Every structure is written in C-alpha cells, then in structure tokens.
C-alpha cells in the first residue's frame, strides 16, 4: 500500500568487507564519542543554576498592590468561582474611612487564603480577576513545605511587599 510515497525500501544484501570487519564502524563510533567528550555538557545543575522558564510561567501567587501601594483586591470572589480546584477562599469587609491608602476599592478581602495543596497552578484565577489583583509569578516557585500548617497561605504571604514589587516581563 502506498499512502504517502515516503516508504523507503531497504536492500539488505550481504555486508561489504568494511562492514564485516567492524573496525571502520568502530573507529567512526569512537570518533563520534570523542567529539561529544569535548563538547559542552547540556546539564543545568538545578538547585544552584536555574533555567529561565519564560514570561508566562505560572509560579507562586501574589496579590498585587497598585502604584500608590493600596491593595487592588476587592473580594469579588470571581477567582474563587473560577478556581477548578476550589483552593481559594476569602472573607470580604467594608473599607472604613481613613483606610483609603490601604485598599483601593470600598470593599476588600479581610481574609484571603489559598490552599497550596489544592492549587493546580492553572492560572484561571489570574484570568478571572477583573481588578488585576492576583497574579502567578513567572520567576518564583512555591517553596517546598513539610508541615500541615504551612499548607494554607494567608494574606501575610500573598500580598505584595512594597520593597520587592513583582514585575512581569513586558510590563512597564
């Protein structure tokens, strides 16, 4: 059956003298291995060296602040609804007068928790957020945890620190 005309019919006649002697093939093979012996290893020694994973890698979550330093999240719950793993939960609270510098909108998340064992890092929360409040950082992974009480991350770990603001490639 000829479907693609890509079939290559191999003629398997007797081996030639050079092929039967093995030695030319062995010398050729050894030349190849010697070439690789002097070429640079492709290994990245992981814990010490880290590969750049691209601007769209979905790593550790962050709750962004705006330029003035107020939290963007308004506790609308869309991220929690979008989350397929049901990892996100929050408690909303009304902003008191005098807290305008802390929270951008009139409503804010008093509690915002992500269960890192449930999270599958799909990034749907980031897509659902209308306020550009939650992002998955491209350059930071969630560190390994060993204890049960380290699993649920609250606002203390999630909210962006002003001294080390998150900037994705391509942002101004």
């Amino acid at each position, binding site marked *: 059956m000829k479907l693609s005309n890509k079939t290559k019919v191999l*003629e398997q*006649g*007797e*081996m*030639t*003298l050079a092929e*039967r*002697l093995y030695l030319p093939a*062995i010398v050729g*093979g*050894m030349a*190849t*291995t*010697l070439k*690789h*012996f*002097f*070429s*640079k*290893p*492709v*290994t990245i*020694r992981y814990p010490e060296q880290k590969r750049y994973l691209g601007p769209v890698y979905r790593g550790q979550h962050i709750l962004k602040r705006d330029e003035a330093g107020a939290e963007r999240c308004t506790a609308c719950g869309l991220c929690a609804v979008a989350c397929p793993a049901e990892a996100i939960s929050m408690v909303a609270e009304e902003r008191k007068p005098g807290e305008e510098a802390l929270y951008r909108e009139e409503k804010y998340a008093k509690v915002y928790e992500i269960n890192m064992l449930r999270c599958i890092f799909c990034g749907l929360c980031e897509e659902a957020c209308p306020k550009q409040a939650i992002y998955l950082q491209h350059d930071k992974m969630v560190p390994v945890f060993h204890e049960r009480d380290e699993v649920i991350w609250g606002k203390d770990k999630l909210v962006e620190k002003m001294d080390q603001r998150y900037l994705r490639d391509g942002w101004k």
Partner: protein
Amino acid sequence: MELLTSVFIAKAIIVGVVFAITLGVAAYSTYFERKIAAFMQDRVGPDRAGPFGILQPLADAVKMFMKEDFIPANSNKWLFIAGPCISMLTALMTSAVVPFGDTVTIDGVSFDLQGIDVNIGILWVFGIVSLGVYGIMIGGWASNNKFALLGAIRAASQNISYELAMGMAIITILMITGSLSTKEIVEVQQNGHWNIFYQPLGFIIFIICAFAECNRTPFDLPECETELIGGYHTEYSSMKLGFYLFAEYINMFISGAVMATLYFGGYDYPGIDFVTQQFGSNVASFVGVGALLGKSLAFVFVFMWVRWTIPRFRYDQLMNLGWTGLIPLAMYNVVITGLGILLGKPFMVSVAGLILLIAALFVYDQLTVKKKIA
C-alpha cells in the same frame, strides 16, 4: 647479608608502592569511568561529593561496606566467599612482573623498579590471567543460581577462546625478543624501537583479546543484564560485589601496563638520554615510571572510551570472532613475523604483510560476496 636485607627492603617498598598505586588507580577508575561516560553523553557526571565529585570513590566504598552482606541459603558458603577473593588475588598478582622502571642506584646498590624479574615473566602474566577465570567460575557456581552459572560459563568459555589468540600474539613478541622476561622485552624496545611499529597486527589482536579477558564491553557477555540479570555477580552484595568490580578495574589497569610493556616500550620515552645526561639515571628512571603509568592510564581511557561507544556482541558473534577471526589472523602474524626475522627487515615485512592481508581480504570479498540487488 646486609646487601640481602637492603634488597629485601627495597623489593618490599616496590611491592607496597605498586599495590597502593594499583588500588588507587582502580578506585579512581570507577570515578573516571562515570565521568567519561557522562562527558561522552553530554552530561556532567558525579559532582556532589567534594569538588568535582573527587570523593565519589570514598562515598561508594562507604556505601558498599554499609550494605547487607548477603549469602544465599543454598549456596556453597565457602566457595561463595572464595570467588571474589580469588578474583582480587589474581588481579593483583599480575603486576608482580611488570617492569615499572629502569634500575635505580642508591648508595651503590642497584634495584630494578619491578616486583620480580623472572625469566618466565610473560608466561606468569598469562598464567595468572588464566587463573582469574576461576574466581568468576567459582563465584558463579557457588551462587546456586542459573543466571550466575550461565554468566560464569560464558566468562570461562570466552576467556579460554581469547587466550589462544592472545598467546599467539605474544609468541610474535617472543620471536622478536628471544626472551620471556618482561624486563628484556622492554630493554629491546628502548630508544623508540617500540614493538607496535613491528607488530601492528599483533597489537590489534592483543588489545581485542585484552578487552575479552577483562570482560569489558563489547565482550561483557558474562554480565549481560538483558539476558543474565547480573551474570556471575547476580547473588553478590556488599563488599564481595565490590571486590568483583574492583578486580575488573585492576585488571584493566594491569592489562594496560602489560600492553605498554609489550608494545609501547614500557618505561621508554622520547628524550630519555637527555634526561639521563642532565639529571642522572635515577631521575630518568623515575620519569620512566611516570611514562609507563601514563601509557597504562591512556589504555584505561581507551577501555572506557570503547565501552561507551560500542554495544555488546551477540554470543555466537563473539565465538565466531575469536575462533575464525582472531586465531587465523594471529597465525598469519606469526608467519609474517618469522619471515621478517628471516629476511632481516621486520618493519618492512610487517607493513607489507598488513597490506597483503587487506588486499587478500578485498579480493576474497570481491570473489565470494553476492552483489547487492540493485
């Protein structure tokens, strides 16, 4: 009496140093085997234990000692223990006759840098290497395991088959030198008259047989994982397994030293006269030791290089190569060498013999092989 004691002490020191060098080289062969394998596969290799992983053999040794030393219930206990011991013993005994350097004169007394210069030197090497198969055979038999036994039988038949061609290759060396003593074989080759130039065919036969005798790839059928699990050391664990593996690396190093002795001038190196004039004969001798070690290590590298290049032979191919390939070739080589000695032009005749052989093979090939169907 005093002379005797000083000679005895000198020999004891030489034996001790050779023993230490052999073990050290064997230990670091395991590290460099892995490093070379890694480099050839574009990897980095072991680099965690110490700088560049230089302490890896130490870590391996600790691991080996910590493992459970298991003896199968239905095995022959004493033979099971004797197997790796014999392997190790025979591997270490071979180096006794290898001349590691020329004579050194201290306080008017001359010592050969050699374990013992016996007049049957190369026969000793040959005999001990043949004994080495007992270690494998006994280990495989005592394990009371089908695969171990099959591996041991393979090792035995392979070693015996390749010893014939190896012996024939050595015979040509004896014809040139006229002596079995390794020391004399080296002395004949001084000043660049290395046997490799007179015996290129013999060297190729010898190195192929050396690969088979050391059970190294492409002839490592005794431990063919796909067919025999681990071969003769299937049932071995802990330091007994370590001994088997160690013996293999020692054999590699020693066979490298033997090849350097037989074909590459032993401790000869270019510029030996210059060094003797400038620094005295003692220094020249010690540089010669370095030259021999360098040559041996180069062979160890070739062993590893081949291992990470060539896949294993099939068993019938192995036997075919040994019996119908190498033995007739070795016989032809003996005839050619004899002719060279008779005509008094060994170099010319050996080159002519090689060319004649290739031409004859080519003509034979043209006459017998069916053409590929176009």
